């Protein structure tokens, strides 16, 4: 475990985080945005596990957090899908640009 420097893994998780951000900002398809959000959440998961394993090997707090996040991600994905379905019913499209009624 200690062969791989922590910075490499953190590099991966950071990259995942920013890829997820990029996907959130640029994708027009709401499902794809949801996938990007999942990516962000997962990158945070990696961070938690890595810090747990490398800095506090005898504790399990980080892993508990990771499990929490997976649970919450699942619940949030369910709610998000429900919202997307409603939006589709009113706009006939899942393009996020079309749902811009809350403007000036």
């Amino acid at each position, binding site marked *: 475990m200690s062969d791989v420097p922590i910075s490499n893994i953190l590099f991966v998780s950071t990259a995942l985080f920013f890829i997820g951000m990029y996907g959130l900002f640029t994708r027009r398809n709401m499902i794809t945005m949801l996938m990007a959000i999942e990516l962000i959440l997962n990158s945070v998961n990696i961070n938690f596990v890595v810090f747990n394993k490398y800095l506090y090997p005898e504790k399990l707090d980080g892993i508990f957090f990771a499990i929490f996040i997976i649970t919450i991600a699942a619940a949030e994905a369910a709610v998000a899908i429900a919202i997307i379905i409603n939006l589709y019913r009113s706009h006939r499209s899942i393009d996020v640009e079309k749902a811009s009624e809350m403007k*000036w």
Partner: protein
Amino acid sequence: MNYSSYIALIPLLPLAGFVILGLFGKKYFKNSSGVFGCLLLLASTVLSLYAAYHYFFIDGKVGDTYQTLIPIKYTWLSFSDSLSIDMGFVLDPISVMMLVVVSFVSLMVHIFSLGYMKGEERFATYYAFLSLFTFSMLGLVVASNIFQIYIFWELVGVSSYLLIGFYYERPAAVAASKKAFIVTRFADLGFLIGILILGFQSGTLDFSTLIQRLTDRSSPQLLAIASTSFLGISLLTWALTLVFIGGAGKSAMFPLHIWLPDAMEGPTPVSALIHAATMVVAGVYLVARLFPLFHINEASLQVVTWVGATSAFLAALIACTQTDIKRVLAYSTMSQIGYMMFALGVSGYGGENGLGYTASMFHLFTHAFFKSLLFLCAGAVIHLVRSNEMKDMGGLRKLMPITNIAFFIACLAIAGIPPFAGFFSKEEILFAAWQHNPPIYYIGLITSGITAYYMFRLYFSIFWSKPHHSSPDGYRGITHHSEGTMSMKIPLIILAIGTILVGFIPFSNFISSDGKGFVSEMHLTFSTMPVAIALVGILIAYSLYFKQSDRPQKLAASLGGLYETAHRKFYIDEIYLFVTKKIIFNIVGRPAAWIDKNIVDGTMNGIAWTTGRISVLVKGVQSGKVQSYALYFFGGIVVLVILFLYVLK
């Protein structure tokens, strides 16, 4: 009996007349408002005559000087401990004289109007306004405080405005009343500034105190005012000239005379009262009241003299060419007031030296009689002929015998033929001029010749010229009252008698520049010149106008451009119209309104517009796009992170 018990009634009775007739006249008085007004004024006149008797013959004189008495005075508006406007009554020779003149002439006009304005729908309003005017004028002449005289000055102006515009449905009358008020208002601006200067420099607004402080050679106020100068002219000259401008406006002196001919749009009795005998002499009265101050300031006295002389001469020239009889009389008034002005201008102070002062006041007195008589006669003529133009008249001597004789007497008086009133007063004026300022004497002399000419031109054109009067309308009203009712004839008779007798009053015993009476002599050899010139004028008028001929037109044609210039009143009206309409309206008024609407208001609207545009630009942030919001979110976090990590350690 002391003065304060009755003196206040003299102006207050007409004031009561104004209030009562103004509020209740139309409903309750109707046709009796005329008699009501006349009765009030009769009471005022009797009281004035009694006051004159009381003052001049009983207790006005102490030693050899007539005292300035102030029986009533109370503070009206106080500005500081020393400066306040007080309402007071001053009795001195000229104010008592003016009380008599104003109330008497006003009474004559009131009586005359009973017949002249009969049948007029707004009869009560007319008498209300006449009473208002009489009240204002009486208040003016007894004012003891310089601001008080200004207050009544303005009231007289507004009474004149209301009366000139009496026939308000005629645009000419409306325009004339406006013009009169605005021209005199402009002059009053000068008066106001003059009052401010005099008031502050002398520390008081009370006439006697003011004059005493500024004429006493040792007083600090005189030193201060004489040594301070603004733009190179001493403050005293400024103050007196500005005050004189106010007087010149009210007295229709050149170049502020343009309102007087137009004021003839008012009813003729009004012209007799206001624009002949009383209001227009207010300027002369003001200069006389402040005469001790004018006397010590040579510059302002020169202004008075030359303005007076110019007005006298110019007006006489214009009068020769006018065809509306009221306008001839208006210019004649301007000319005679010019005489009064320059008489004051050439006067010295004290005893015989003050002959000009006495002569001026004497001429004011006699002029009131014969000028109001002339106007009332003109009124009678106009009442009959229903026109103001000389060409519609002629040969009226058989139809209107009393008017004929009255007019003739008045013309002789104004021409200065002895033994009528005008001779004595004019002779004294010319003598005073001869003694102190010969060029003025010559101007006055020539003017009196021209005066005689145009007055007799008027007389002959109205009453002679044609064999009998024939007008296109026939002899309307010939069977009865062609000359007017009894109420129209009586004032003419009374005034005519006055014109004959008044000249014999030994005026200088009562009225002089320093209060001490003196005996003035008749200078027979000196008088021959003016009388001769007057007779020459009468003869020329006789030859041209006694019988109808075309000699006048040929003379006019031969004078060509000169005649035309005089006929068009020297184009002064046109110059004024140009200055006001083109210059003031277009260069000051219009730009002011334009700037206000477009620049000042435009700035406010501009601010609103800019706010609108900024709002349009900024509202784009609220685009409704979730992803933009997320981006702003992210940007904000980055900024905060940098802030906390690097800037705020």
